């Protein structure tokens, strides 16, 4: 049985890993335009469940960092804020993707032993 302290350490490590992965997943998915709810559904369809309380504020922060652009659509229905990767975001995604691949290779090798 895993001790409480160990479980806490595992949980916190997993949260850290997920936090970075969610940013990468959101950026990759936002090569196509999405609003918050549709992005969450798209991530869910790809097998990544992200809580609304994490995802929606994250979109704002990525926009604040210049990686996303956004626009409000005020049609007949409910007003929606759509997000899409900005040119800076595309460059950042490319860099992050290369880094991720290298890291995944290294880690796969280490974890396979």
């Amino acid at each position, binding site marked *: 049985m895993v001790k409480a302290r160990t479980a806490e350490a595992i949980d916190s490590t997993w949260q850290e890993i997920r936090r970075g992965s969610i940013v990468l997943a959101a950026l990759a998915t936002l090569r196509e335009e999405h609003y918050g709810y549709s992005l969450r559904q798209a991530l869910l369809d790809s097998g990544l469940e992200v809580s*609304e309380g994490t995802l929606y504020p994250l979109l704002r922060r990525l926009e604040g960092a210049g990686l996303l652009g956004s626009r409000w659509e005020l049609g007949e229905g*409910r007003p929606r*804020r759509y997000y899409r990767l900005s040119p800076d975001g595309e460059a950042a995604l490319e860099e992050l993707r290369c880094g991720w691949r290298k890291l995944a290779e290294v880690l796969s090798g280490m974890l396979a032993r």
Partner: protein
Amino acid sequence: MDLVDRYVEAVEEELPRRMRADVGRELATLLAESVEARMAEGVPPREAQLEVLGEIGPPREVAGRYAGERRGLIGHDMLPALWRTLGVVAVVLGGLSLVAWLWQAGSADDPGAALARSFGEIVTQFLSNLLEVSGLVLLIFAAVEWLGLRRRGREGTWDPASLQQAPARGDRVNRWGALASTAVLLFLLVWILFFRDSLAAIVSGREAEWVRIPLVGPGLLQALPWLVASWCAELVVQVALLLRGRWSLFWRLADLATRLFGVAVLGVLVAAPAPLLATTAAEAASLGAHADLARRLASELLPMLDRLLRVALLVGLVGSLVGVVRRGVRLVASRGPGASAASSPAGGA
């Protein structure tokens, strides 16, 4: 108003002002969409709202994520508590200083003169104490922040249904406003009942000393019972609002009635036939003023001050009337068809 609206309001209140409207609008849309998706799966409306809000987390936490990472000594989610604590500290220290001021003056031979003399000293003491205690409070908050103590205590305590008990924004009493009004009314009552003689002219006497001539005139004395009754009524309403924390129809009407009463008393004072400020040349001279100065004070200076006071009271009356109209409009708005539907128990389902 449903739970989602209350939740969005609660998040907005924790956010910096510049972000509120934009984040609030987006969050309301997104949450409504999530709730609808659950309802489409057959979940009843109230349960769907509770599920979505339960999963997204407490308003303060979510607002903290929107506002970004900690950049200063105190994290964003702790700032409202810090401001509240500093406010309480300021009010408590202000109250203690007021009591000390009145106590010192009351035990002096000449309370009126002692009040004026010790005012600067009390204000300096108050500011110095405020700085000292605020620094200590800031240090304690910083320690709690950096040691992460607050997070442990809050885990597992988020219940979205608790939002239902919180009053809607329009029904919430501004506690700081009520507290300030209470303090001002208490001060006015203590002053008018026990220290009204401090309203005096200080003139040079026959023997080169300073002489105090009390100025409260018959017009003010005749209106005194009404003035005290009006301030007492307002005090009762403010204390009740402070304790209740939310408006109701009864307390809105009571507030309106006491304000109207106050306006009427101000009207009586402005139109009083007897002077509000007065003394006679003989009285002033008997207290030690030069005969010439006493005559000028009674016949020229005081009538002019009396007129100035009435103009000031008239301005106060107009301001109070505007306040009464605003309260009347708020009362009607809070009883409107939309408002009554929103505040009914069914509105939260």
